């Protein structure tokens, strides 16, 4: 029997939203395993994305009370973060937060939903697709993500899952960072606090993969965001995650699935692997690209395997006395400048 959240097709929701079609999971770029995606239409006919959630999975769990609590907390945290981010220009925010009831009588079930702007596509699809993504566009996306992350950081929120599929493209090359379902708010408990990796392990910083969980919010959470921003740049060049590229370069005994020691002990090997990845990246970028050296330096700084050395060196120097060493402001400026340079270079190369 299908879950209540899977039965919204054709339903008209509060505010006149009509649920048009379910989106198969493979076609959605964001979202958790406990939600279903739909295309919905507003009263004006504009299409949006709806994320529906119910608690039926929790009720089938071995410990329903605990599962229900976890699910509820996660959903509420996401809603709260969305509320915090509703004025942020580079973060996908909800345009509607509501609920509906599916069925009637004793079989009635509540389904909660969030409605978002509908994106054209994600950075993942743009990068790995038949059409190559112009580097100027890729750099615009990086600037927008850096801005979005910084906006969240200023609100004491760490995103922790800024992977390529969570960077969405809207009309007129407007990139925004989506899915705050794995975010943490400083000073507030999150249902995923017990997980060493809040987001997707494929894009996770290496220290988390090896179980080094710094008690400092900034180091563990904002450091993760900084790494993932550098990881996005890596993905745009290499079409792979920085983490996978590093692990690929490690000997089997040092890979996270086999390692049995501390992160400090494996760090020299991780760093050597990381340096090899940087060399490969350098080779994969066009030698004439104006952004090549600076982008590579950004990746080297943002993805440094040692979280205490991550981020812009100038920012680290200025903020060393307790500030946010992962402040992304300088990278926003750098990506902006590099995007311009790339645009100019692309224009030149198109001229006959």
């Amino acid at each position, binding site marked *: 029997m299908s879950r209540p959240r899977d039965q919204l097709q054709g339903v008209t929701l509060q505010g006149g939203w009509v649920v048009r079609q379910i989106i*198969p*999971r*493979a*076609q959605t770029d964001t979202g958790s*395993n406990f939600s279903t995606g739909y295309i919905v239409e507003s009263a004006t006919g504009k299409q949006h994305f709806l994320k529906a959630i119910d608690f039926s999975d929790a009720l089938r769990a071995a410990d329903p009370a605990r599962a229900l609590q976890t699910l509820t907390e996660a959903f509420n945290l996401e809603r709260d973060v969305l509320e915090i981010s509703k004025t942020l220009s580079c973060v996908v925010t909800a345009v509607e937060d509501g609920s509906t009831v599916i069925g009637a009588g004793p079989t009635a079930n509540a389904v909660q939903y969030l409605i978002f702007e509908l994106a054209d596509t994600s950075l*993942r*699809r743009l*990068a*790995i*697709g*038949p059409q190559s993504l112009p580097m100027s566009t890729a750099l615009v996306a990086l600037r927008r993500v850096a801005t979005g992350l910084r906006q969240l950081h200023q609100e004491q929120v760490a995103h922790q899952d800024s992977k390529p*599929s969570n960077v969405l493209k809207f009309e007129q090359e407007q990139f925004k960072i989506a899915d705050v379902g794995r975010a943490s708010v400083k000073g507030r408990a999150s249902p995923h606090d017990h*997980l*060493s*990796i809040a987001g*997707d*392990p*494929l894009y996770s910083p290496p220290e988390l*993969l*090896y*179980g080094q969980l710094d008690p400092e919010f900034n180091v563990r959470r904002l450091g993760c965001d900084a790494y993932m921003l550098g990881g996005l740049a890596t993905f745009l*060049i*290499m*079409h*792979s*995650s920085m*983490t*996978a*590229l590093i*692990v*690929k*370069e*490690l*000997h*089997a*005994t*040092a*890979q*996270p*699935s*086999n*390692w*049995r*020691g501390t992160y*400090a*002990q*494996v760090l*020299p*090997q991780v*760093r*050597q*692997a990381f*340096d090899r990845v*940087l*060399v*490969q990246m350098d080779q*994969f970028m066009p030698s004439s690209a104006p952004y090549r050296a600076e982008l590579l330096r950004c990746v*080297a700084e943002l993805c440094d395997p*040692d979280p205490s*050395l991550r981020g812009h060196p100038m920012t680290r120097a200025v903020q060393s006395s307790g500030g946010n060493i992962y402040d992304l402001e300088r990278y926003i400026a750098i990506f902006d400048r590099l995007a311009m340079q790339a645009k100019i270079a692309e224009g030149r190369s198109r001229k006959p």
Partner: protein
Amino acid sequence: MSVLQPDADRRLLPRWQSTATAIEAGELASPKTTPLEPIDDQHFQARKREWEAARSLDLAAELVGSGIVLGRMREVEAAARQILDPHSDASPSLREMAAVALETQPRAARQAPAQRRGQIDRPLVYQSISRLRHSLHRHPRNILGWVDLGRLYGILGQITQAERALSNALALGPNDRFTLRCAARFYVHIDDPEKGLALLQRARATKQDPWLMAAEIAVSQVSRRPSKSLTMASKSLGNAAWSLRSQSELKGSVATSFLYDGSLAKARRLFHESLVDPTENVVAQAQWASSRTSGLVIPSLALEVPHNFEANALRARAMGHWTHVLEDCWNWADYEPTSSRPMTLGSYIAAVVFGDADATLEFARRGVLAEPKNSMIRNNEVVALALLGRLEEAWSTFRDIAFDRETAPNQAVLLATMGLLLFRSGDVDEGREQYERALAQTSLRGERYLKALALWHLAQEEIVADTGEVTRALARAEDASKSIHDPELQMLGDRVRKLPRARRHGHD
């Protein structure tokens, strides 16, 4: 002439290996047996389902990446094949990633060899140095890169540069196991074991790491200082939290300590335990120890450990397979180009057993390159040059050896070598005088083997110079060798006895 018998002593010092080789040998692996908390595979499973449903290239790419990160490459082979399909739009970098996923062995431990078999390819080493320096200029925090750079300089005998590179590594990773072990080995190499010991004893990591404890014990033995790890190490042996491989050198080091203290039964027991999952260094140590205590048998499985060249050379020597000794010494030198030990053994066997001056010189020259300040390898070079009649070179090299700074046995060897040089230079009386001084030193210290060795060499010189002292010299050598059952001495004796004697003196 004389050459000092090699490997009278052996401590389980860390090898000064390239990072790639050390990683392969498990020297950089975690000592612990308890696995980390498994990484949540919820994303992996979801991704797999998504890819199976849609089979799009972007999902295939992420699934392959996840398989690599989580060590589940078998489960992503189909996705990797999709990427590698000639008709797919995958980029070259993505194809490379997919190709790695389809291999069972991850890509690591790739390093161009620093030398060709039997000789150091200096241009190749310089090339490797240049590449590494360039890389370190861009990525100066690469500790292992600095260690590798230090080793490359070490191969060329450029000690100052080697020390500088290792200092950089130590500054970045004062508790890094591999760096500490290589640095300690380096300081033993340059005859400053106290400095190596101080490094190990200062490092916090030494208290918890069996590999570092093993190194500390070995270096303390070399520097004749008390080990700070020995007591703790003895208590920690058999710690189930440590893998057998990581305990191998520790057990071998403690066993060596027992061996030197005369606790042979304890030494044998620990050597046996050290050989359950050994490094090649431990196998070599046990092989060396087996000639000093009965009942220590090396299991055949242990002899199959990769890069087992030293153990093979020692084993071949014990069995009298002399050609194999030379062969394995070359392999060993290729494997450990910073050490003069393979060359010391090789030149010794070439000189004593074969009387092959060319081979002796070849081994000695390579040894000098590795350790220019090692007087005994220099001595062997002098011996080879003298036997080849290149007396000017021989004297010049001999004069560079600081006789006064040498130990008494080394001085005895050097005196005998001076005797050889004088004999070959035509000054028989003075040559004989120097041999007698060498013999007096050996008698004083009760070094019977060295005395017999010097006497056979004296007899050889008396024969070559065709003096009237041949019969007496041979008789003295035979007499000194009577109670020594040593196959190398026997080979030397056989060879000297068979030397053609040109003419006979009246009283001979």
